[in-house]
């Protein structure tokens, strides 16, 4: 009789183990914000949470989209003045803060530049003339945005594009929804903006690879992370080629051209999704030297993996224990 009880307990244990690892996992993929998104969550409420995240991201896309005629950003760009929702106001304010933190390397007013380079769907990629770029540059810069209470105003030729920060904000919102649903193990990828929520179901950290910028089906290293956003900006993600020359989509607000800072990929690790997204673009524009200074002043806020045009890999000291790679790399000390 006793042995029968032990056998039953043993079988029950196997059954519980199987149900935890298989039944409570739920994944979904959807297209939003001009990219493809995937959310995988483990836990009792995983299906409810994942579906709520898809709804939330589609809602945010309708607020922040630069091309959707009903979005708040589209309306602000065409009317030049708007009382937007609290969320849009918060994101514009945050963008201006990060712009000042990065000496203008992060800039949400590059919309007219991205437009003349044809980096919006429906437009043809082209290299604009120097004259065209010079005509647009005076309306670029965070100083052309005014916030008075809850009203945002733009200078006459200024237009906003939150594309370099909206996915980060959205992944932060997604992580919040998971938390509200009691989920402590999930992985979110919003077009390459990764957010690791908690740990894997077995308690080990999530492994997030960093794409090789020269061959997107290979990886240059792996980060082991818990509760962190991991965001990469690279010239390889969106680009066009004309006369044998490659032009990528990350525009330097100072020159009006695709950034040429000597970096070809920047990965940021941070607890703050919005900051991680914005800084990956900012540091791609700033280059290695300025990135080192920024890290020295803010090493409690973010870590970074940088790949230079000559294939050298640099990681910040605070990622030393979480980064592994077959390649050799230099450590940037705080």
């Amino acid at each position, binding site marked *: 009789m006793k042995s029968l009880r032990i056998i039953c307990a043993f079988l029950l244990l196997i059954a519980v183990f199987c149900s935890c690892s298989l039944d409570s996992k739920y994944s979904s*993929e959807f297209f939003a914000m001009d990219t493809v998104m995937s959310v995988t969550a483990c836990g009792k409420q995983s299906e409810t949470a994942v579906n709520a995240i898809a709804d939330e991201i589609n809602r945010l896309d309708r607020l922040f989209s630069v091309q959707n005629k009903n979005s708040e950003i589209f309306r602000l760009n065409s009317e030049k003045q708007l009382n937007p929702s609290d969320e849009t106001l918060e994101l514009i304010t945050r963008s201006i803060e990060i712009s000042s933190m990065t000496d203008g390397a992060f800039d949400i007013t590059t919309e007219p530049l991205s437009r003349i380079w044809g980096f919006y769907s429906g437009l043809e990629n082209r290299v604009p003339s120097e004259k065209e770029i010079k005509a647009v540059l005076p309306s670029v810069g965070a100083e052309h945005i005014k916030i008075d209470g809850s009203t945002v105003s733009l200078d006459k030729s200024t237009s906003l594009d939150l594309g370099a920060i909206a996915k980060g904000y959205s992944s932060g919102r997604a992580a919040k929804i998971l938390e509200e649903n009691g989920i402590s193990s999930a992985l979110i990828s919003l*077009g390459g903006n*990764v957010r690791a929520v908690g740990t894997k179901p077995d308690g080990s950290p999530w492994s997030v*690879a960093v*794409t090789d910028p020269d061959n*997107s*089906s290979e990886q240059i290293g792996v980060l082991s992370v818990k509760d962190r956003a991991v965001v990469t*900006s690279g010239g390889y993600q*969106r680009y066009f080629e004309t006369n044998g020359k490659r032009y990528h989509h990350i525009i330097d607000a100072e020159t009006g051209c695709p950034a040429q800072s000597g970096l070809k990929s920047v990965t940021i690790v941070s607890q703050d999704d919005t900051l991680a997204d914005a800084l990956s673009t900012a540091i791609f524009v700033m280059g290695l030297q300025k990135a080192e200074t920024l890290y020295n002043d803010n090493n409690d806020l973010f870590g970074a993996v940088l790949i230079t045009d000559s294939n050298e890999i640099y990681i910040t000291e605070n990622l030393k224990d979480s980064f592994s790679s077959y390649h050799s790399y230099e450590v940037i000390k705080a």
Partner: protein
Amino acid sequence: MKNRIWIIIFSVTVLVCTAVWIGLSFFPSPSKIVGIYQNGSLVEKVDLTAQTGERSIELNGDYGKNIISVTHGRIEMKSADCPDKLCVKHGELKSAGSPIVCLPNRIVIKFENQSGSADAEAGALL
């Protein structure tokens, strides 16, 4: 009495392990099962290890036609009418963290369950 219990536990463990082993050898390794999705819905699952010869799968989207090529152990986007052709430039599908994505025609080609690689990839499109 105690010995009997241990013998029973040992027998059950052996039985479970044998069942799992038989199960695994009857079903193909999941590492080469690839899912082809369009607009978030599964179009087809392909077992790359079972593929003999070359096969083409044609999909149509807002930006024209995509042709996927499947050979033994290999899948890639052979051609695409979309403007950027990033899916064709991606080449062969190699890792779970880096799926082949055609954004204009909303196609994703990815390994269904590949063990041993990273859980996600920063900078890849998924």
